[in-house]
């Protein structure tokens, strides 16, 4: 029962996505092509975020802490 409601909600959400992005007027093969491309791009974004953002944050933190580190010896 709960599953049906969740499924209905997701199918309504998918329909909204189709309507807003004009997928509803495309032919089925165009629709699958567009969905594939969109999911691929989304997957690449997620992968990049997962792999690279922690490294960038660590490097930025080291860079700024080195600058602040230089400040403290001079002021002493």
């Amino acid at each position, binding site marked *: 029962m709960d599953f049906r409601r969740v499924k209905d909600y997701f199918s309504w959400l998918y329909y*909204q996505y*189709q*309507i*807003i*992005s*004009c*997928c*509803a*007027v*495309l*032919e089925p093969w*165009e629709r699958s092509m*567009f969905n594939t491309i969109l999911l691929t791009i989304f997957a690449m974004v997620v992968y990049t975020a997962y792999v690279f953002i922690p490294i960038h944050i660590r490097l930025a933190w080291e860079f700024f802490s080195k600058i602040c580190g230089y400040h403290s010896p001079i002021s002493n």
Partner: protein
Amino acid sequence: MANPGGGAVWNGDLHNHRKESRSLQGGNCPKNGILKEAQQNGKPHFYDKPIVESFEEAPLHVMVFTYLGYGLGTLFGYFRDFLRNSGIEKCNAAVEREEQKDFVPLYQNFENFYTRNLYMRIRDNWNRPICSAPAALFDVMERVSDDYNWTFRFTGRIIKDVINMGSYNFLGLAASYDESMKTVKDVLEKYGLGVASTRHEMGSLDKHKELENLVAKFLNVEAAMVFGMGFATNSMNIPALVGKGCLILSDELNHASLVLGARLSGATIRIFKHNNMQSLEKLLRDAVIYGQPRIRRAWKKILILVEGIYSMEGSIVNLPQIVALKKKYKAYLYIDEAHSVGSVGPTGRGVVEFFGLDPRDVDVFMGTFTKSFGASGGYIAGRKDLVDYLRVHSHSAAYATSMSPPIAEQIIRSMKLIMGLDGTTQGLQRVRQLAKNTRYFRQRLNEMGFIIYGNEESPVVPLLLYMPAKVAAFARHLLNRKIGVVVVGFPATPLAEARARFCVSAAHTREMLDTVLENLDEMGDLLQLKYSRHKKSARPELYDETSFELDD
């Protein structure tokens, strides 16, 4: 001195008006007794209610998604064009022949691109054949497409009793035969159908004369002339009235027939913003001060072209201010009442009666019989010398076949019904029913939260849909629920403002309107169309009448 009817705002205009009527009473009387009647009936009631028109803007995310949707459609359009050109896919659209491949390409402009790639995908919502009279309920032929709308075939089934929200049937007079149309049958038996001549040769019938007298009486003017086709009335008669050396000031959203007539005339055309009196006044001032572009002489004539009700916006022209401007700057006014004659005003006489003005203030009345009278054809009415000039010089009178007699009789019968000359009050009841239906429909739609354009008294109701996929889904879903609507997209409207246009009719009963409204409610929830941010009622934009000077 007491000001009759509402007049605190209209002091300037009232003063002018009184001056005119006094001078005419002394002078030569007009031909028939009609004008005398207008003067004696005396003080017209001036339209003192505030004009409530709204053109609400959509929220930003809606516009972004609309453009994104069109962008995606365009990308796929390029992709499909590439597939078609390289031969991977069969091309169903028009292409040039082999011999023409080295010539200038014919089908590469944006209009053809749009038609091939965007319009074709949702083409099944337009040009749907119907197979009954366009009354409040009508029958639609069912058709399906096997190859994504490139070709259609009829299944043979007929969808019966579809509620008609698209036909211009404002007073419900476009119905199948009933006993009140007996005079049309008699005229058909006596005169036949074809006229086989133009007005100048042997096509002027006594039916035309009777109809023209009736139209003049209906509009309270001196004379009128009728033509066989409404579009041709505009496009063939504006060139006869203005020519080179004249100036036409035309509204931004004028109909194609007015634009065509203006261009054919050879006059200079300047466009003012839709219903915007400041823009019009600026153009008038510049025209009077600077004259013609290089030779600096005064313009021979300045003609203001407006419509009574604009069919894509549902807005009503701001006639009192235009008349005041025209009198101040000595211009002429041509008003196209295609949608407003028979449908606005307390007795259905059009926008002049709606605002309570004097018919002598407007120089040229033009209208069609297609919308409220259930027939076809157009008329031009005004002063007798204007109409006599058009009888001789109009291109339509010289070259176009005149109106067919049964159609003329149908218009005569409808007009007599509206005026009450057939002895019943059915006409007046229909006009009042239309006003009631309009107000109810608009009020309910506003309450539901849709964005509706236009004046709250206009029976043309555009409901904004914005996204192209929603346009297609809206029309298809409603047809499945047996409601027929007209949806409009680019190029008839701006690119991002696709809409569904409802035409309320006096023939719609309260139950029909409630059914339609219920279904619209469900559609609004399913497709998320309720964009309005003013839940209670449309925010009224009160026109500030004192925003320009009336001192003269």
